[in-house]
């Protein structure tokens, strides 16, 4: 087990693409750390650089107390699970799991026994003599995990290991991964483009965009206090409503309506500041009568989500979405007024896109964030 320290890491591909730009990151010992971002943001490149499969142009990677920047992949004591699992089609399950041990020159009988044990722990008993092609996607994924576990690494590196599974299996595999991590407590770096996966699995996470890290924090931090407009629009099952607004003496003006100033920004903005008001659809409410601090809108489209309705609204300030509980079925076409939980609303500078407000994780010293992610103090 080991911590990982990345400093000033820069990676430039031969075609000139700057995949990583001066990345600094600290991953703690035993932590489940998610790297999240849209495709092309550099998350996989960062993971591959940790593995040693990519050589950085500048910067340093430390695993534990060793500088591994110039070490070949095999000398770093990491194990990687690939998106396509990279199971060897010509070996059966035991040989696949035992392959790292074979490289470590463990004797054949012992490595097969250890592989069988690891496989059994991961629910693969009875499949040991099958070929990967004879396994389901979920089983293949477990074999890949077992192979990583069997090699006893200091660090697990996961490159979107769940993205080749169908939706139901993915949920099961997610729980399985979390349980596995709770058991082995090996430092884990997990790359994903699925924000729900990152929020569900990670102790802490980093959101990346364009080769840079845009926010680091616990899932609760990142969900409740996205540090900038990019993270705000990227995180969340339904995208956050982001409305252009101007600060006035007694609130923020959105279009013709005056909304209350989010308490987190109180005292940090001046009248006339151009800002963006952010409120998640889950933290907004619909009213059928005009209310103070409400935004006037009209219901355009209603999507049924099972336990709730996602209502698409048209307002003078632009389109927005609100989640409504299932026992209040809305009607399309009617005029409504929207209020947002003031305590859950956020204000961003329109020019820089940065969050306004104290207690934003980016502004907090990193050491002050508890690993358990006990937040919720507004």
């Amino acid at each position, binding site marked *: 087990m080991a911590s990982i320290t990345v400093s000033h890491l820069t990676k430039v591909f031969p075609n000139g693409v700057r995949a990583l730009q001066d990345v600094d990151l600290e991953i703690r010992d035993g932590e489940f750390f998610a790297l999240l971002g849209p495709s092309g943001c550099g998350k996989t490149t960062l993971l591959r650089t940790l*593995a*040693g*499969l990519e050589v950085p142009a500048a910067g340093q990677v430390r695993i534990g107390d060793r500088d591994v920047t110039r070490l*070949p*992949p*095999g*000398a*770093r004591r*990491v*194990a*990687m699970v*690939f*998106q*396509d699992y*990279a199971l*060897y*089609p*010509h070996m059966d399950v035991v040989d696949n799991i035992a*392959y*790292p041990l*074979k*490289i*470590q020159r463990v004797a054949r009988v012992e490595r097969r026994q250890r592989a069988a044990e690891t496989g059994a722990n991961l629910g693969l008993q009875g499949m040991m003599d099958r070929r*990967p*092609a004879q396994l389901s996607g979920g089983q293949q994924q477990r074999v890949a995990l077992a192979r990583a576990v069997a*090699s006893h690494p200091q660090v697990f*590196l996961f490159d979107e290991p769940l993205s080749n599974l169908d939706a139901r299996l993915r949920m099961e595999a997610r729980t399985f991964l979390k349980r596995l991590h709770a058991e082995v407590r090996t430092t884990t770096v997990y790359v994903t483009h699925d924000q729900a996966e990152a929020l569900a699995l990670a102790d802490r996470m980093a959101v990346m965009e364009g080769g840079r890290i845009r926010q680091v924090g616990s899932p609760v931090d990142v969900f409740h206090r996205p540090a900038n407009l990019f993270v705000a629009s990227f995180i969340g099952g339904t995208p956050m409503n982001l409305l252009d607004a101007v600060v006035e003496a007694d609130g923020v003006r959105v279009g013709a309506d005056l909304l209350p100033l989010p308490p987190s920004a109180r005292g940090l903005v001046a009248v006339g500041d151009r800002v963006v008001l952010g409120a998640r659809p889950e933290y907004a409410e619909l009213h059928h009568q005009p209310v103070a601090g409400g935004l006037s809108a009209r219901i355009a489209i209603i999507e049924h989500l099972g336990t709730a309705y996602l209502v698409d609204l048209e307002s003078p300030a632009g389109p927005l979405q609100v989640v409504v509980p299932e026992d209040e079925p809305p009607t399309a076409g009617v005029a409504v007024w929207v209020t947002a939980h003031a305590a859950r609303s956020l204000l961003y500078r329109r020019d820089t896109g940065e969050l306004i407000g104290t207690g934003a994780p980016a502004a907090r010293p990193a050491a002050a964030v508890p690993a358990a992610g006990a937040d919720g103090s507004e």
Partner: protein
Amino acid sequence: MATTHPTPDPTPVSDTRWLVRALVARVQLYVFLALVAAFFALPMAWLVLSPFDSQPSLVAGLSHPTLGNFQDMFRNPAVITSLLNSVLLALGTMLVVVAAAALAAYALSRARVPGRNIILYVLLLFSSVVTGSAAMVPIFLLAYDLHLINTITGVILVLAGGLLPAAIFILKDFMDSTPASYEESARVFGAGPFQILRDIVVPLVRPGLAVIAVWTIVTVWGSFLTPFILLRDPTLTPASVQIYSFYSAGGTANLRLISTFGLLYTIPVVVMYLVVQNRYGFRFYGGLKR
């Protein structure tokens, strides 16, 4: 053929005419195909039948059935020696080609070499020159200076040199189509290049290796010019050159010996082809069945 549109709607008369015409066309096609088939099948029939005829001619047939030809042939000690020499030559060249092509194709498939494809195409182009008749004099001189005249090693090296570019070309395609993640995961677990080649890449491209191995054996088995020029000692002569000795000094062919030896010479290649086809199946492209 001219198409006829005499009436806007087909009458029973034109229907019959159409049927007759279709029938004639079909008969013509079969006659043509039969002729083509016979053209290729007759030499085969000659090869299979003549060894069992005590007075073979250039006509395929079995006028005087006998097994005496085989007795006569095996009385000639050069026959078995030459077949063994052919086996040695074919297996030796096959080993050199497969080993060298596997290493070269792997390197060319994985390493970033500027102008890699141009190098490959130029090699492929020149390979036909190397074992062709145009380069025979320089090759003879080179072999002479290296003291490789009259050695099996010399013939193996020259033949392998001629076959390698195409073998590398075929094998590189197989290597290219194995996913990089297989090797990357092995690298992360600490495997070195030769371990990866042995444990991962070679098992995955085995169909490709089978293709170039068989192709090398067949080519060497049938090659005449290179062993004919480089080997002077009759005890080293392979079967392909041995056939040439079944002529009298005046140039008359001894058809009994030639046909019998010809059959014997063909059988190993056919058997090998069937065995490999059954066990591995030939594929001339890369890609994996997972």
